């Protein structure tokens, strides 16, 4: 084991001089309290270490002890439903041991080592097994079955095996003999370094959407399972709110929510809400499928940098079992700022706005860990990454937004103007995009509605038409436009208020299944076509408006419950009737 002593301390950066044995990315224990740190640079005489806890009170000369392994997380049952800090220390255990305030030198086991899990052994003696092979099954939460696997880099023949029964994380379940004759014990849990992507068999093309129940996302800018998306927006535009909505309703098996440099009260809110809200898919509290990672903005900055990697490693672990996992990272800007802060302490040459030159490659490395894969065990699983970005001053030209844009394929741009007029979700339909649209069309056409993509294209066209008409309206008012153009505006208003705007606090509107979304689109377009036909007969728009159909269609989101799709028929009839009546009058 390597040992050295501190030469210099500058905030979270500590240097050790004239000790050779440390390796890059090795975990070290710093000082007498054993603060956790990581080797981030080796330069001639100096080994540079970033420390994940406040370094106040540490003296030069205090010991630094290497652990001989890179910063790792423990993977096993007990992760789901838990809340961790940036380096996988459970916050509830920390509270139990240290009280309401987080002190330094916290020392708690990463996962509960005393709990006995009901284990069903699947592997058989004599089996030749390699990485990813499932050896045992445990019910981790009522919603999630945990499959314990052979760690990716291990291979051999099972020589000894235990009975089904109750075991803790520290018990062994099977023993295998590797090619070089070594006997290895394998249990419920394994370790994995957070900065190294977990291997898989094959990365596959994406073709399934992550259904979120948010109309503007599912319809206009859908995201695939295994895809990547960014939500940029200035403060107060609803990034966190959107992330919460996705975490609640996305049809992933497991949600990993990383509160990276954000507010403490928000994490408390997620904890509270998610223990009460019921997941429509499993009928269990949402917390039963959720993992929370909290590094609030006043917790140590180095751990903030690590929290993103901790989150993605946990996600990959469940992906390897064949689950679809979605990660919400709120916010990746704080992570980039943590990089900048550490980089500044290391006196590295800054690139744009003080961010280090390796910012783009770090971002790429993170987003590329998403994907739809065939795991080593043969099952298919996915990791979807949805990262919030907090651009300085709400200006999307800053480095983090721009570099993120290069590595994601879904861009949900939040708009301050929309947020100010309380249009939520404030996703701007002109600036946002999704590159998955075409790849997912087949799924939507097969599973939702055959006209889904054509209808969507029409909706998009109306919205674009509106935005160019608005330029004129801003100058001269809408009264001077011909009725045909005012109809575009009127329909666009119905789309904006009745379709794109979605009320997160309304029991039905908070989550809308794709089938209802399709029906709503159809209804709006039916209204549009009907009004167009009447305008061609020289019926004034005001007459059509007087029938109240526009307002009726706009409030369909509230008036038709999610479980009563048959009610759409009466609305269709209503529009038809309105058309007939007016036609009679204008014959």
């Amino acid at each position: 084991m390597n040992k050295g002593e501190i030469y210099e301390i500058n905030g979270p950066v500590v240097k050790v001089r004239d000790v050779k044995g440390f390796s890059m990315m090795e975990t070290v224990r710093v000082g007498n309290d054993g603060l956790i740190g990581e080797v981030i640079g080796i330069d001639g005489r100096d080994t540079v270490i970033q420390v994940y806890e406040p370094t106040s009170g540490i003296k030069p000369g205090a010991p630094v002890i290497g652990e001989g392994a890179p910063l790792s997380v423990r993977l096993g049952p007990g992760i789901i439903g838990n809340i961790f800090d940036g380096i996988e220390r459970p916050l509830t255990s920390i509270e139990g041991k240290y009280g309401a305030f987080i002190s330094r030198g916290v020392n708690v086991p990463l996962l509960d080592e005393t709990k006995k899990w009901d284990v069903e052994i699947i592997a058989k003696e004599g089996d030749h097994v390699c990485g990813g092979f499932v050896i045992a099954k445990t019910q981790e939460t009522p919603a999630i079955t945990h499959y314990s696997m052979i760690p990716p880099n291990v291979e051999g023949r099972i020589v000894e095996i235990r009975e089904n029964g109750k075991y803790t994380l520290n018990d062994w379940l099977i023993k295998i003999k590797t090619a070089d004759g070594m006997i290895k014990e394998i249990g419920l849990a394994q370790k994995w370094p957070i900065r190294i992507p977990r291997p898989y068999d094959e990365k596959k093309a994406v073709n399934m959407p992550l259904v979120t129940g948010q109309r503007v996302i599912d319809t206009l800018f859908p995201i695939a399972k295994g895809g990547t998306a960014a939500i940029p927006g200035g403060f107060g535009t609803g990034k966190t709110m959107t992330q919460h909505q996705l975490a609640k309703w996305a049809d992933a098996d497991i949600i990993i929510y990383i509160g990276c440099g954000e507010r403490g009260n928000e994490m408390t809110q997620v904890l509270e809400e998610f223990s009460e809200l019921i997941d429509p898919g499993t009928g269990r509290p949402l917390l039963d499928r959720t993992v929370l990672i909290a590094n609030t903005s006043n917790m140590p900055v180095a751990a903030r940098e690590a929290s993103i990697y901790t989150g993605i490693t946990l996600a990959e672990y469940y992906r390897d079992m064949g689950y679809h996992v979605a990660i919400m990272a709120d916010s990746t800007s704080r992570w980039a700022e943590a990089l900048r802060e550490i980089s500044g302490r290391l006196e590295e040459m800054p690139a744009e706005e003080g961010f280090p030159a390796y910012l783009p490659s770090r971002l790429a490395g993170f987003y590329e860990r998403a994907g739809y894969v065939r795991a080593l065990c043969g099952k298919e699983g996915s990791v979807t990454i949805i990262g919030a970005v907090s651009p300085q001053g709400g200006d999307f030209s800053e480095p983090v937004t721009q570099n993120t844009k290069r590595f994601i394929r879904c861009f949900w741009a939040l708009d301050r103007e929309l947020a100010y007029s309380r249009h939520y979700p404030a996703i701007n339909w002109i600036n946002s995009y999704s590159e998955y649209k075409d790849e997912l069309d087949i799924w939507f056409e097969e599973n939702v509605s055959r006209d889904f993509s054509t209808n969507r294209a029409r909706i998009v066209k109306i919205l674009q038409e509106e935005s160019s008409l608005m330029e004129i309206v801003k100058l001269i008012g809408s009264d001077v436009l011909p009725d045909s153009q005012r109809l575009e505006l009127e329909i666009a208003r119905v789309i904006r208020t009745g379709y794109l705007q979605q009320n997160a606090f309304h029991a039905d509107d908070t989550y809308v299944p794709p089938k209802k979304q399709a029906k709503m689109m159809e209804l709006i377009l039916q209204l549009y076509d009907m009004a167009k036909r009447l305008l061609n007969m020289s019926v004034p728009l005001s007459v059509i408006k007087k029938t109240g159909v526009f307002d009726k269609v706009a409030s369909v989101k509230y008036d038709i419950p999610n479980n009563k799709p048959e009610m759409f028929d009466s609305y269709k009839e209503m529009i038809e009737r309105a058309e007939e009546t007016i036609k009679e009058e204008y014959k």
Partner: protein
Amino acid sequence: MALEYMGLSGINGPLIAVEGASEASYDEIAEIRLKNSDGSMVKRTGQVIAVSKDKAIVQVFEGSSGMALDNTVTKFTGKPLELAVSKEMLGRVFDGAGRPIDGLGNIMPEKRVDVNGSPINPVSREYPRNFIQTGISSIDGLATLIRGQKLPIFSGSGMPHDNLAVQIVRQARLAEGNDTPFAIVFAAMGVKNDVANYFRKSFEESGALGRVVMFMNLADDPVVERILTPKCALTAAEYLAFECDMHVLVVMTDITSYAEALRELSSSKGEIPSRKGYPGYLYSDLASLYERAGMIKGRSGSVTQLPILTMPNDDITHPIPDLTGYITEGQIVLSRELFLKGIYPPVSVLPSLSRLMKDGIGEGYTREDHPEVGNQLFAAYAKVNDIRALASVIGEDELSENDKLYIEFGKSFEAEFLKQGVNENRSMEKTLELAWKLLRGLPREELDRISTKTLDKYYEV
């Protein structure tokens, strides 16, 4: 016995280098005795900001003027900066570093606490849900202050943010039937003498002084102490809230001076600047202040923060308001335009927001129609602004009848709802009634953010 180090090896702004001080630990407090040219001794205090086996860099709170390489003796105390706290602090005035300056002598400390505090474990936090009534319609109605929240006032030079803060402090009260004691901690950072006096006088006149703790770092006080002022104030607030079970409202003014002090120090340390010369850790540093607001499960006290900052050039995208907005739970933005129109308080409604409001208003808290009414007022006023933009091009006469109603609504909203007297204390009930009075000026179909049920109950008188 701690070692003493004679002399220095370098001085740069408020930073001094002490050679061979391998005893020093990071972040600890150093005491420096300085011999003046006339032979008198002066004591100064500083903090270790970087240390290696060869030397320690100490930031001197009072500044380095008069220091030479050979006239100082430095002693390291082995402790971080601590504040002596006790309930006796109520009614007292301290300087930026927590030393009494009201001539009443030191307090009898209950205990000494590290001013840097520790982060509250998110698991131990209690989600804030109870509102504080400020008696100001624009805030109570549209950006309700919640106990345990951090809600800053974004203002500009010359605008009446100080009056607003004083009015809030004077009128703030908890919901009916709550008799938990209420205290105010006031931190002045780099404010002018007369502003500090205004606050002191206002507290005195309203009879609140007995429940106020004041920390004063005035514009001409040492810059380094300015960094400590909010930390001391929040340490006192946490003590009163979490150990003496009081509800504490912390007013901090002016965060802009604080951030500028941070920048000044950062540049004297030779750090790499990020936006507008502010250090890259400005976000983390501000967060270490703002995140100290909150409530803890099982304790009855709370820390609510009302930081005030003046936006340089009224620019909300400037790093200080920008980073603040990302940490705090909403913001109250004052508008120069309303101010020039003579409207007090000039709260700019659209960009103002209270994030915690949705869970602390409505049935069981304020009144069941509050969320919908608030939403509708926002939406209607947003529309007023669009119509005004249009009217400025085509003239008000050319507007449609409907649009004219909105223009009327906009006028009375500003003149009756936003505008109120410096001493006018409106109850929540009154604020909501006023809102309905204005909304009735609009046709019922236009109120699309309010449910039919609520409209039936309140729209017709």
